[in-house]
């Protein structure tokens, strides 16, 4: 069988699909039971009413919206980064793109559940969809929540297609290498792919156009998510900087999630030969860049508020800076700026464990960032008489934990049934290519040697 080049590659990447370890069943069982707990918590909330959650007058939005923004932010890891890397034809992207795009697809699905969970009447969520009611009334296109519907669905459809289209040739490969039921299932999924020159051409042309189209969509999605806040007259919500600020934060947290996912895959699926230190190093540099950008946005936002010195905004400003929310605020600054900048700036510290640790911190920090944008503004609105506070309640916490488990579960299942690294793209990457410039080659070499 192995007379032809690149077969070891295909063998390596198809192996996780054919051999299942006990750990897989254990992980699926544990994760699925956590997800079931989350579903039960939601059922509890549906049965007794929204009152079992911590949201109240005047803090009408809390954990659910925080998680919504957080997960939509995580989704910016994948398709956006993969599309940019595709367009600039970065060679090192090949093993990274699919693991990244999967994050987008699942994070978007999870994120999009939160606006439904948070509704007072979740069973009527489809009233936001553009279709006329029995009285010929359509949804209100002036509402940011309707924009959300369009933006998230466009991004979800685009990202799913962006993920699935390059999977077709890989399904064909698995079809040819398996027998029985597996062959039938993957044969159906392969849609009769032969790999003719026409098919390759159409696929590559389509991916090129999709990459161009998906980048502005990704930017628009998180901008529109930020509009949910900046359209309202809430102190420190009503800000023009929110669009780019949210997009930068989304890409920041997305890269962190991607790094963690890749490190986990590398270890669990034994992909050391494919995801090597070069990839982590490149992503870490991107993470450092986004950390600096994030710091710049936070500084601009804070400075303009402080300088403007409006009483209602200053109440929120001081509540986060040195009031009740200060511990979260300073944790956020520590995790999102101080640690990434001081660790990732030095090549000596940019080791794999270091990068993963920083990424975990960034996820924590970015979660706090979303929380600190939403809750303090609501709890200290213009009329001091209506000031309030917010304490999350068990259903909100359980559902939040369950979504993290859901992400891990979906990711585990996906990597079990689909090669997590695009086989055909890796093969193209192994084709002879022009030699690297001397300095770049040296760097690549040193990273290869540093491989543990």
């Amino acid at each position, binding site marked *: 069988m192995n007379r*032809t080049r690149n077969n070891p590659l295909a063998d390596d990447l198809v192996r996780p699909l054919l051999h299942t370890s006990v750990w897989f069943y254990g992980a699926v069982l544990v994760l699925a039971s956590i997800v079931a707990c989350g579903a039960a918590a939601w059922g509890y909330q549906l049965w007794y009413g929204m009152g079992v959650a911590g949201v109240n007058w005047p803090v009408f939005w809390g954990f659910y919206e925080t998680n919504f923004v957080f997960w939509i932010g995580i989704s910016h890891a994948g398709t956006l980064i993969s599309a940019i890397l595709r367009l600039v034809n970065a060679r090192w992207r090949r093993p990274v793109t699919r693991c990244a795009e999967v994050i987008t697809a699942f994070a978007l699905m999870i994120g999009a559940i939160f606006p439904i969970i948070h509704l007072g009447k979740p069973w009527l969520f489809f009233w936001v969809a553009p279709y006329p009611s029995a009285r010929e009334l359509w949804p209100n296109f002036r509402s940011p929540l309707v924009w959300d519907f369009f933006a998230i669905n466009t991004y979800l459809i685009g990202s799913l297609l962006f993920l699935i289209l390059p999977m077709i040739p890989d399904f064909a490969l698995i079809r040819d290498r398996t027998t029985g039921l597996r062959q039938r299932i993957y044969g159906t999924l392969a849609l009769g792919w032969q790999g003719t020159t026409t098919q390759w*051409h159409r696929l590559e042309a389509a991916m090129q156009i999709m990459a161009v189209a998906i980048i502005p969509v990704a930017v628009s999605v998180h901008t529109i998510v930020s509009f949910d806040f900046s359209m309202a007259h809430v102190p420190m919500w009503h800000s023009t900087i929110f669009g780019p600020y949210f997009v930068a934060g989304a890409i920041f947290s997305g890269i962190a999630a991607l790094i963690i996912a890749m490190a986990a895959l590398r270890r669990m699926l034994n992909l050391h030969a494919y995801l090597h230190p070069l990839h982590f190093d490149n992503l870490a540099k991107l993470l450092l860049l986004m950390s600096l950008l994030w710091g710049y946005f936070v500084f601009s936002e804070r400075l303009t508020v402080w300088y403007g010195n409006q009483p209602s905004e200053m109440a929120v400003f001081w509540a986060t800076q040195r009031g009740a929310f200060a511990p979260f605020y300073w944790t956020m600054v520590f995790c999102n700026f101080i640690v990434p900048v001081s660790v990732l700036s030095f090549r000596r510290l940019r080791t794999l464990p270091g990068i993963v640790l920083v990424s975990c911190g960034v996820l924590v920090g970015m979660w706090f960032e979303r929380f600190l944008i939403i809750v303090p503004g609501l709890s200290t609105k213009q009329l001091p008489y209506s000031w309030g506070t917010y304490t999350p309640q068990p259903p909100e916490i359980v559902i939040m934990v369950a979504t993290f488990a859901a992400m891990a579960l979906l990711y585990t299942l996906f990597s079990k049934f689909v090669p997590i690294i695009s086989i055909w793209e890796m*093969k193209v990457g192994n084709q002879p290519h022009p030699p690297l410039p001397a300095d770049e080659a040296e760097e690549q070499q040193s990273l290869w040697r540093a491989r543990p």
Partner: protein
Amino acid sequence: MNAVYALYDNPAAVQRAVDGLRAAGVTDADIQVMSSEPFEEYEFGHKDSASWIHWIAGVGGIVGLASAYFLTTVTQQSWPLRTSGMPIVAPWPNLIVMFELTMLGAILATVLTLFVSAKLPRRLPPLYDTDVSNGYILVGVQRPSGQPLVDVTAALEAVGEGRVKQIDR
């Protein structure tokens, strides 16, 4: 229907085979090359390239834009409800919906074009070999039954390597 194909393990041989078939009078449309990866740097890899897909994506975008324009303006006028002192047809918010549907139109048109022009989904045709997935590159010619394939076989064998196979059905 009958077909002849050969499996080669390197793209340079494929290029020679394709050139040989052309010399034997086989048209480009009849020559089928199948591989488990695209070969952009060889001439045979370009024989079916098309630049018109971009235009279809553009048309899809325009269709999306137009439908979003009508969706927003018509529905806002069909039952005019005043909110926040905004005009009944509110241009700024509508632009957001128009942008999203433009992009969605372009994406869907692209994918539709891919499926139609790459003839997907379909049943796996008889002219195929599972060795393609093992890294071999298939060069084949398919003709209605009755027509001779002797010249094709000769051209494929003239390359000097690879395995030539025949399908009679």
